[in-house]
């Protein structure tokens, strides 16, 4: 528990988080590892976890019957993988695949939702941090959308 608390505090996501909140997060957390090419989750799955990546990199893919896995972004150490736990129906929208050995901290979605409901201070703090992750991802996706290096 203490080790997990420390690990969360060291991850950019947990930076400057109140000790009380760190403790709450650690209560639903676990250290996890994935082998190279192992799927962390798949599109449509009810994988009710979010992951704070400590090392390794992860491809976020969309599977196409004709093209196979289309990688739309890669995430690596210091980044957060998965925010579907926040939005009903809590199912994954993309595939996540370890490009190399990945070490991460997983936190249960249902556990987080319950805590957020019980303690709105915690909920608001968590939401602020996740909206930052989502906003950053949206901004970067918009830049990808304009196909900046293309023939326009």
């Amino acid at each position, binding site marked *: 528990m203490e080790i997990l608390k420390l690990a969360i505090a060291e991850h950019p996501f947990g930076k400057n988080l109140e000790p009380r909140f760190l403790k709450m997060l650690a209560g639903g957390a676990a250290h996890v590892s994935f082998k190279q090419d192992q799927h962390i989750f798949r599109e449509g799955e009810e994988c009710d976890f979010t992951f704070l990546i400590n090392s390794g990199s992860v491809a976020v893919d969309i599977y196409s019957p004709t093209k196979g896995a289309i*990688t739309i972004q890669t995430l690596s150490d210091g980044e957060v993988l998965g925010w579907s736990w926040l939005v009903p129906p809590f199912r994954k929208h993309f595939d996540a695949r370890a490009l190399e050995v990945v070490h991460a901290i997983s936190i249960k979605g249902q556990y987080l939702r319950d805590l957020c409901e019980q303690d709105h201070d915690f909920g608001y703090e968590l939401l602020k941090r996740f909206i930052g992750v989502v906003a950053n991802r949206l901004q*970067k996706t918009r*830049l990808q959308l304009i*196909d900046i*290096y293309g*023939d326009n």
Partner: protein
Amino acid sequence: MIPQLYSVRQIKQETHDTFTLELDPKDGTKTPSFEAGQFNMLYVFGVGEVPISISSDPTAPKYLMHTTREVGIVTKAMRKLKRGDMIGVRGPYGTHWPIEESAGSDIVIVAGGIGLAPLKPALCHLVARRENYGRVVLLYGTRSPNDILFQKELKQWRADFDLEVYVTVDRAIGSWRGNVGVVTTLIPKAPFDPLSSVALICGPEVMMRYTVQELVRRGVNHGKIHISMERNMKCGIGFCGHCQMEASFVCKDGPVFTYGALENIFGKREV
């Protein structure tokens, strides 16, 4: 204003839509010296003239190299030239990357797409004088794995010269195991000291805008961020007026500017 004649040594296909033109002065004289970041006006007989940045090594100018993309009638005609064909060259023109001036600093280079070509002379210079610089980081974003320029050089710089090279692509299918995402995603984690870094950026203007934002967010000084601008150029010497951006003519006051100098207009609509 009169082009000098150069003969084509070789045309090398780089990627599906980019190629490198290697040129020798026709009269057998030495290739003139230039600074990293400068450009030449290249004239294809009977077709027209375009500004293209120089891509050769400024510390050992064996011959002139220009890497460009086939996009207009002139570059398409250029691609069709054969060894021994003649081409007109005016230049070198414009300002340069502050390479010698930046000795002792960390150097962070951010390139987007064909924007790596105008940065190649800077990379050659850094590699040739590697001991004069701190960390040298290259962040390079392009469209897909098939669009990665200078693959051989990237490998060599990484392996032999202690350059930290990070490549990312906007989209990938199949065997690509590298980064996917816009080049700006590489900046927050790139290993350089923002307070003692000089940044050199070249790529599409939108990419440069968001790159500048990320560098500023990390604390790089506005005057230490250098960008290479693109505007319509007809003369190369500040007389035709086409490349004007407020108080500057991009051809002679640029193409390399500090972000600090353009801050008030960079990204402003239709200036």
